[in-house]
């Protein structure tokens, strides 16, 4: 990627990252996105100061409930929408604001897999057209046959073989799992560095879900891709990711290795999220779960003052409502959380 001047408004990096920068491929710094609705009378803070780093060759899970801003974060990274403030840094270069022609080049390196494999492909296109289109847009391959070789190659990679059998099919002739393989192939054909996958398996049947996750993970490892996995399903995140970031109402409240976050959660919200998950084990019929958290996620148009989780938190004290919002704090080993009272609870 070519060098670009840093924008003057780029915020300082928060002081809690203790990593070697050379290993960071994507960094978000205090990224914000506000939507003005009701003719500007209401401001929805969908993403409200998100900072994290994605390392080279890792899978980072972005986990949270609907409305927490995880999909908006994904769209911001894809530059499908403009951030209100903050910075997106790829490979050490500020990519927050790009002119239109640079955006196209940017997306060659940062690709997205969408949630709905039924809606993300042109129904009139054959599989080979779906896969050729990114090559045409980015002017890769001189002749059609050269491009078709690339298409066949990438189809083998996602285990759609023999490629010749599937190339001439239309999307409606494929199962959900096969479509999501083609969607994956469509991102891989450009040899990107970063893939943002927004709920890539939530619409796929249980029996094939694991197969798709396996495939994505083995390709990610093989091609050393950096992967942002956006999901509401913390159970698949445990299986699929290296690190997990838990998002609540526009902010990250906890981040760390998947083992640390799930086996030793610190933030009360992470704890509540884990406590709510069902598991296929006997002896639990009819027993009501003890839920530590009250009510439902509030609107992003009315984010509570202080710690934004305090109205739902069973451990909230006076300070949680009155003091300013707690920042992420490192407790070692890259495990960070944003709870002021974590030692007492």
């Amino acid at each position: 990627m070519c060098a670009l001047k840093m924008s003057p408004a780029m915020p300082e990096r928060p002081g809690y990252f203790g990593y070697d920068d050379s290993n960071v491929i994507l960094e978000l710094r205090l990224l914000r996105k506000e939507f003005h609705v009701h003719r500007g009378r209401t401001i929805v803070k969908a993403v409200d100061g998100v900072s994290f780093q994605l390392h080279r060759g890792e899978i980072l899970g972005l986990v949270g409930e609907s409305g927490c801003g995880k999909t908006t974060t994904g769209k911001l990274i894809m530059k499908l929408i403009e951030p209100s403030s903050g910075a997106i840094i790829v490979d050490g270069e500020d990519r927050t604001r790009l002119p239109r022609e640079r955006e196209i080049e940017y997306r060659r390196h940062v690709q997205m897999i969408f949630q709905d494999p039924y809606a993300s492909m042109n129904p009139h296109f054959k599989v080979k057209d779906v896969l050729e289109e990114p090559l045409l847009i980015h002017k890769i391959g001189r002749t059609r046959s050269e491009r078709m070789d690339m298409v066949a190659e990438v189809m083998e990679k996602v285990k759609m073989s023999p490629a010749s059998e599937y190339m001439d099919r239309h999307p409606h002739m494929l199962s959900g799992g096969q479509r999501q393989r083609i969607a994956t192939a469509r991102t891989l054909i450009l040899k990107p560095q970063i893939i943002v996958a927004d709920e890539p398996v939530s619409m796929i049947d249980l029996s094939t879900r694991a197969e798709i996750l396996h495939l994505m993970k083995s390709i990610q490892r093989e091609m050393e891709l950096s992967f942002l996995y956006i999901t509401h399903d913390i159970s698949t995140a445990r299986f699929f990711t290296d690190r997990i970031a838990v998002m609540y109402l526009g902010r990250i409240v906890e981040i760390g290795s998947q083992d640390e976050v799930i086996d030793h959660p610190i933030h009360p919200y992470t704890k509540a999220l884990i406590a709510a998950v069902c598991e296929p084990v006997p002896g639990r019929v009819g027993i009501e779960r003890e839920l530590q958290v009250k009510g439902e996620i509030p609107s992003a148009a009315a984010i509570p003052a202080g710690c934004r989780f305090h109205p739902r938190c069973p451990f909230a004290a006076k300070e949680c409502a009155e003091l300013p919002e707690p920042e992420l704090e490192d407790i070692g080993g890259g495990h960070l959380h944003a709870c002021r009272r974590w030692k007492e609870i």
Partner: protein
Amino acid sequence: MSDNTASSAALPVLTVRDLKLHYFTSKGVVRALDGLSFDLLPGETIGLVGESGCGKTTTGVALLNMPSPPGRIVEGSIRIDGTEIVGLGDHELRRKVRWSKISMVFQGAMNCLTPVYTIRKLMRETYAEHFVGERIDAAAIEELMRKYVTLVGLPEHVLGRYPHELSGGMKQRVVIAMALFLEPKVIVMDEPTTALDVIVQAQILNLIKRLKRELKLSYIFITHDLATEAEVADRILVMYAGKMAELGSNEEIFGPVGSRHGPLHPYTQKLLASTPLLRKKVSELAFIPGAPPDLIDPPAGCRFAPRCSFAKEKCRSVEPPVAEIENRHMVACWKAMEDPEYVRA
């Protein structure tokens, strides 16, 4: 089951025998439900699980005798509380069966509430719909509505609200209240928690458990998620391609694989192995290769045979009957029936 001995002796509240519901489409007859038999005891929950298209929802609507066109119940019997409902006319079903004997929480119903009606009007309409031509005592209905709204954990003023003013969890509670309030014996719940966030999901599951205990309800609980069934279902009926693969108690289905007291059908075992676990780290998740068969022209023999790693010649030619292996533990699999090594392993 909490009171196993007491309810085993009781008469079933719902008896289904050899039920067949076919869809008569332009492409041919889709055998969506092809011979299902089971009993539901008072106060019991049977969980229906399987992949999409296996006939779970079809079973649900068949139990209310309201197949969507071009579907028709072609054979079989459904007795609810002693009344045979197959063959009854629409008017009779509406007056005497639906909602007063058996009701259903439809998948996604919470998003289908008429937006211009208040909750009060919606509930009153449900009442009027099932008591056509009878005098309606407004005060009595109001009292009934208040009772059920309170019972599902909502404040009474919700009756005056419009659907868009309520959160997803609250709307789902309204839908459950509407299913309850003509006091049926049996309630069919079709994916009642699927569209909700994890924490809200757990809250609704707690409600469903509490209502079952307090009102002594019997449920048919439909979901694709085995982990949810583990929390609510006394017995689990695993469906595959319109037929029963296995019916066992919660302890059996979620019991040790390879024992007589564990899951017996290879399909059940594979489904369990492909369910991601949150609290246990697994490096490999199983998946089931291939896809469910076309129900217009299902394969001869066992319908799961093309995807089954144990399949032998017999499985591909002769369809296995549903056999009782242990006390009330039914399975339709030649291997489970005939291979003594298989269950002893």
